């Protein structure tokens, strides 16, 4: 039993990573979005580095959230269209494990690249030097929370024709704690405070999401497949 649980996780992780590798252009678009929007901020706000530094942490977090939101829409969409989602639903495996594999693949292809690119954006928005390490840590944990929560919304809206906009409506309120503690981690570090407590809370949110979100997503998919 244990091996079948693991194989479900690993098989779907490998499959989704392979698919993402074959559609590299598609997988890169959230990343390009993330970088492009960051050029809008100096244009819309001010090019002064002192004022940019004030808003940099929050802006990077908001953009990371929007980039994740844009990409999480497609988490189940192609599987629903080509019928492999239905195949997944009738396998004897426990449904949450393959879903966790898919979500992990989603994080590896969006959340992780966003995290790795974020120092570049920090540089462009003149983020103070003490903010870089906390930003990377908080984004790595936080984008994982965003992928997990987003999967629940994606599961509930996968069969709808215009699910994308609705998905953001459903998921956005649930994202608020993540963005609060994510930006707090960075601003604490910039202000010279101990930034581990907000990061620890982010870790707690991540632990709770790993445990609960795949279950809720599985429930959602069972409903949409019956529809």
């Amino acid at each position, binding site marked *: 039993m244990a091996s079948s649980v693991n194989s479900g996780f690993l098989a779907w992780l490998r499959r989704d990573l392979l698919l993402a590798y074959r559609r590299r252009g598609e997988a890169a678009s959230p990343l390009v979005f993330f970088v492009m929007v960051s050029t809008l901020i100096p244009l819309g706000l001010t090019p002064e580095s002192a004022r940019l530094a004030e808003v940099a942490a929050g802006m990077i977090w908001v953009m990371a959230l929007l980039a994740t939101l844009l990409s999480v829409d497609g988490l189940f969409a192609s599987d629903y269209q080509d019928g492999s989602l239905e195949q997944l639903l009738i396998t004897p495996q426990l449904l949450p494990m393959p879903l966790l594999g898919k979500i992990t693949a989603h994080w590896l292809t969006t959340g992780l690249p966003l995290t790795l690119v974020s120092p570049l954006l920090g540089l462009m928005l003149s983020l103070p030097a003490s903010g870089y390490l906390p930003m990377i840590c908080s984004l790595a944990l936080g984008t994982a929370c965003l992928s997990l929560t987003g999967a629940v919304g994606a599961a509930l809206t996968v069969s709808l024709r215009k699910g994308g906009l609705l998905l953001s*409506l459903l998921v956005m*309120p649930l994202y608020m*704690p993540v963005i*609060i503690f994510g930006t707090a981690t960075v601003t604490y570090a910039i202000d010279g405070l101990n930034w581990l407590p907000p990061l620890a809370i982010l870790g707690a949110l991540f632990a709770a999401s790993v445990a609960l979100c795949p279950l809720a997503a599985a429930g959602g998919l069972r409903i*949409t497949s019956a529809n």
Partner: protein
Amino acid sequence: MSWQWFHRLGSPRWFYHNSARWLAWLCPIAAAVVLGGLVWGLAIAPEDAKQGNSFRIIYLHVPASFLALAGYYIMAIAGAVGLIWKMKLSYMVMKSAAPIGAALTFIALFSGAIWGKPTWGTYWVWDARITSMLILLFLYLGVMALQYAYHSIDAASKAGAILGLVGTVNIPIIYKSVDWWFTLHQPATIKFTSAPSMHPDMFQPLLVMIVGFYLFYAVALILHTRSEILRRERKTSWVRELLNEKNQDVADKKVGKS
């Protein structure tokens, strides 16, 4: 045998027939309590020393906020009952509770903004409680939007129930984190004038209004659920018979008049 009442409660037809009897009692009581509380709060209760008459909006604002939050839990519990016991009626209650709760949340936010202008000098501040209420409104709108998006009633109900449950888990987390966020960013210019201990003369009408709003909520929920029952069960024979009776009555009256 002891569970019979529970199974009967699941029948929309039984609920429709009996709720008419409950409403006959509930409507006058709710109207009396709300009217009594309004007159007591708006006319008889003493004026506030600092805020003058503007504090009286509390008699609308606080009960609406109470019910806005309680309404979300009522909606989520109704959805959970539907998921667990596959009860058609509780899905209808859940669907009816969403717009009522959203309206109450909006009333709470709107009355708060009107109250904020004379007391704080601004319609809107990013206060922890206000922000939490705004997020609650978004949660309500999400549940409503999801239900309207599905054509199949069954899928709409179940998806809404799951989203409601996810929201229930998240509400305490959202509230705590917004609280925490506010202590971090607390704006210095605003001082809260709400005294921790209200004078009993002001507090008693508030209690009456809260009870009145609970009763009003019950009436609104039952009325909304009744219309939802008729809409969903319009193809069943008992609703058709009901409609025929109504039409017959109208026709009889017309004949009698002419």
